């Protein structure tokens, strides 16, 4: 088995043992060597002592999806040893800690034993160090086995421990210990190996949550209220970290307020209060938090308070799989709250888009005076992705929407909080404290007339509800368009996807094209759907809708909200909580095309990853 710059390494560890940092070092070094890397952290919902995996696909720069299959397994966890062994592809490599004897029931793989624990026991006295450096030792061995540029690795260590200089040398020593062992005991490099790649120099490696947080900073969010929940916690934490650094006034005081609320109801309440009062405000949450925010989302929709909600989706229903990925909050978010409500959703496809769409979300929210929900997920949010650099156009003017200041109130026509003055169904608002005698109004979730006054006149209320429907039609024109990638102008087959599945679907389309199936692809980026969505559907006979949920939630939305005939839309569903692989997507679509082409059968296609 020869594999140059194209393989998967997987680390099987126990969580809380310090492996995360070493594994990231490995991925980062390869990234710096100009390669494509796709790291996936597969971690348990606990703090210490349970199995955890870190998978790194090494590939050409343009690929960003998980591949599946393992070429090199670094099996450090005795608990999962058997299972880890079984995952290695034929001809692949097992690296294990040979300090204790292990059985090897497979003879179709190559086994490389390194007495890691023994080496560390010899080298270190402190038990914590003995544990921690084990991880560094296997990375060191890999640098030799895979022919990594050791200078790059060393520099990565230095950067990692910037400010903690004392840690640099011991880490490099440990790396060398592993490297030397490998050089001495194995034929290095292996046929599975790397050579420096030519990826664009400006690429970055970043998690979606970090990028989302930066989007909030650049959008000028000043109030964030949140409640800890995996996998959204790091959005708020990163925002606080960045904002505290970049938002100091002359006196060292902060131009930002971040509050860890007592729960999600309070978090969204604070955000609504702040947004009503003219600050750009957001909260970030996941699964259960979304359910708890329903009542307030309805209030904000109806009272037209603009704010941003980041939903980093995880495996549902209920507490579900908190450390696994899904896209299963679509229905809930689109229609959150009782009564007739609809919300604007954005679906970023990678961290760069997390940054961009999050920043856009604030403009949209204030322009439309409504909550905007950014639909990220665990895979996108918590894994490191390689993408182009984040960019900000300094000439960009933040769109603060229709807010009347004192002068406008003084000189303008009579203020009607909920009047449709401009024909776009978006009303004007005023902020508390603006004018001594003009522009005050009462914000409420109860039925109201155009002056925001309470009314029980069903007609008046219905007219207001109709305006909200028209406002949603305005939203349709303002939200980011779906991205369409045509493989063929005449093709009748299409695929629709959104969010983090982008990487896998794109690669799957390439694979399918190789097999002779040319599919045009449309990646949704927002709800409500722009006109391009129905148009795309109209131009195709059969469209696969790839989603990571059980019930085909986006497909349902496409049918009812974009008016696409159900029989055109074939669900390709995965809900085992793992990031999709191109191969799985290709397989499902190919099988469907090849099998009975009757529409009825196709509609039932509801499958999940192997």
């Amino acid at each position: 088995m020869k594999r140059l710059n194209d393989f998967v390494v997987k680390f099987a560890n126990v969580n809380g043992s310090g492996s995360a940092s070493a594994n990231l070092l490995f991925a980062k070094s390869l990234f710096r060597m100009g390669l494509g890397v796709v790291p996936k952290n597969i971690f348990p919902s606990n703090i210490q002592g349970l199995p955890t995996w870190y998978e790194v696909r090494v590939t050409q720069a343009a690929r960003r999806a998980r591949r599946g299959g393992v070429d090199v397994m670094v099996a450090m966890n005795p608990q999962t040893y058997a299972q880890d062994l079984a995952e290695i592809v034929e001809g692949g490599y097992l690296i294990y800690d040979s300090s204790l004897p292990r059985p090897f029931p497979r003879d179709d793989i190559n086994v490389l034993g390194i007495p890691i624990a023994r080496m560390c026991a010899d080298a270190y006295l402190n038990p914590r160090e003995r544990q921690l450096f084990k991880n560094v030792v296997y990375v060191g061995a890999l640098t030799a086995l895979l022919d990594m540029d050791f200078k790059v690795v060393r520099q990565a260590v230095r950067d990692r421990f910037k400010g903690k200089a004392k840690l640099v040398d011991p880490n490099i020593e440990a790396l060398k210990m592993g490297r030397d062992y490998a050089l001495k005991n194995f034929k290095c490099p292996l046929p599975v190996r790397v050579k420096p790649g030519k990826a664009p120099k400006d690429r970055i490696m970043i998690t979606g949550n970090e990028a989302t947080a930066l989007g909030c900073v650049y959008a000028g969010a000043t109030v964030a209220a949140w409640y800890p929940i995996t996998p959204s916690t790091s959005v708020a934490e990163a925002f606080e970290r960045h904002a505290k650094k970049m938002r100091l006034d002359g006196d060292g005081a902060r131009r930002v307020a971040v509050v860890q609320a007592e729960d999600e109801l309070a978090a969204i309440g604070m955000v609504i209060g702040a947004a009503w009062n003219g600050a750009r405000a957001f909260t970030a949450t996941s699964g259960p938090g979304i359910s708890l925010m329903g009542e307030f989302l309805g209030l904000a929709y109806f009272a037209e308070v603009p704010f941003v909600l980041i939903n980093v989706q995880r495996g549902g229903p209920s507490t579900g799989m908190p450390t696994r990925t899904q896209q299963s909050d679509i229905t809930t978010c689109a229609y959150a709250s009782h009564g007739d409500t609809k919300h604007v959703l954005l679906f970023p496809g990678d961290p760069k888009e997390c940054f961009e769409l999050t920043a856009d979300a604030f403009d949209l929210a204030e322009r439309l005076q409504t909550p905007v929900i950014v639909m990220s997920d665990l895979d996108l949010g918590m894994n490191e992705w390689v993408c182009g650099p984040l960019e900000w156009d300094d000439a960009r003017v933040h769109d603060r929407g229709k807010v009347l200041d004192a002068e406008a109130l003084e000189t303008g026509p009579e203020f009607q909080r909920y009047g449709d003055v401009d024909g776009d169904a978006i009303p004007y608002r005023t902020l508390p404290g603006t004018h001594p005698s003009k522009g005050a109004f009462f914000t409420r979730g109860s039925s109201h007339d155009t002056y925001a006054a309470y009314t029980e006149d069903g007609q008046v209320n219905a007219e207001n509800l109709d305006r909200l429907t028209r406002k949603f039609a305005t939203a349709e024109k303002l939200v980011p368009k779906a991205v369409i990638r045509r493989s063929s102008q005449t093709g009748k087959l299409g695929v629709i996807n959104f969010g983090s599945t982008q990487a896998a679907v794109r690669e799957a389309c390439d694979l399918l094209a190789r097999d002779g199936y040319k599919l045009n692809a449309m990646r949704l980026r927002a709800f409500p759907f722009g006109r391009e969505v129905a148009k795309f559907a109209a131009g195709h006979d059969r469209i696969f809708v790839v989603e990571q949920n059980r019930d085909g939630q986006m497909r349902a939305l496409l049918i009812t909200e974009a008016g696409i005939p159900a029989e055109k839309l074939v669900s390709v569903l995965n809900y085992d909580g793992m990031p999709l692989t191109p191969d799985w997507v290709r397989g499902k679509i190919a099988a469907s095309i090849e099998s009975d082409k009757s529409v009825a059968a196709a509609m039932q296609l509801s499958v999940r990853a192997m």
Partner: protein
Amino acid sequence: MTFMKKPNVRHPGLRKNELGLTRRDYEGLLSTLCAGCGHDSISAAIIEACFEMDLPAHRLAKLSGIGCSSKTPTYFLNQSHGFNSVHGRMPSIATGANLANRDLIYLGVSGDGDTASIGLGQFCHAMRRRVNMIYIVENNGTYGLTKGQFSATSDRVSKSKKGEANLFEAIDLCTLAIHLGAGFVARGFSGDKEGLVPLIKAAFHYKGFAFLDIVSPCVTFNDHAASTKSYDYVRAHNEAMDRLDLVPEREEIIAQAEEGKTVTVRMHDGSLMRLHKLDDTYDPRDSESALTTLRKRYSKGQVVTGLLYIDDEDADLHTLLNTTAQPLNAVPMSDLCPGNAQLAKINKSLR
């Protein structure tokens, strides 16, 4: 209050305050509460207090939850923005609003159902965070708007209008407030406007969380003989702990306080509050004493009113968060958005 339209004529003789405004300018829409409802008296006291304090009403935001009590912000301060939010969640709305603009005055109005039942958690946490606001509970021991169910502040001995027994002990909101960190805790009675107006004014002068538990009879569902929140009961059992005097910053204190009987507190805005104690066994600056007094008097069936506790720590939520002095909603985008050069640095750190 409901049937008559307010006449639009202004009495030319109506007294004007320093802003040139009359009491009328501090009013709101016509109340739609029941005639005689205690809540209307509280609205009147708020109007009175704001008028007397020369308050520019547009610098105040009125916030509430849901309930008859939570409707009242419509009935005072027409020039203030109002937010009638959802049931029990006004504290979080107030917290967020305050974060966005530290320069306005936040007046939250809630009911006992809104605060002590569905809103208990948010209420406690807003106090703990020292949100700079005035929080009034219009406490009638019942759910007025949903027609007379017991609330969590109904005393165990109280009975419903139909004679049903209340099974549970009341939650004493003042006690809770002192425990959870409210810096200003007072109880008033809507039937005692004279006592109420100074309490409200003092709350306005306080920086931090000022809590006012105002017993406010519900004439429709909880003003009968077996109720402990009726006008008659509260009048009969009201024990005023003190009387307040507020001396604005600019005035000098002339009279010397009577030793042991008068407590003078300098408010954060520089004004002085003089508290004439009617009971000298307790000290409102000592939480221990306030709590003990509350418990002892309650066990005797008394309804203690007055300023019960005041803490002169100056730190509100903004102090704790070290936010900039400028209201966050007024910081220009140029000071908020770090720009592309900074982003380039961040990109670099991610390579």
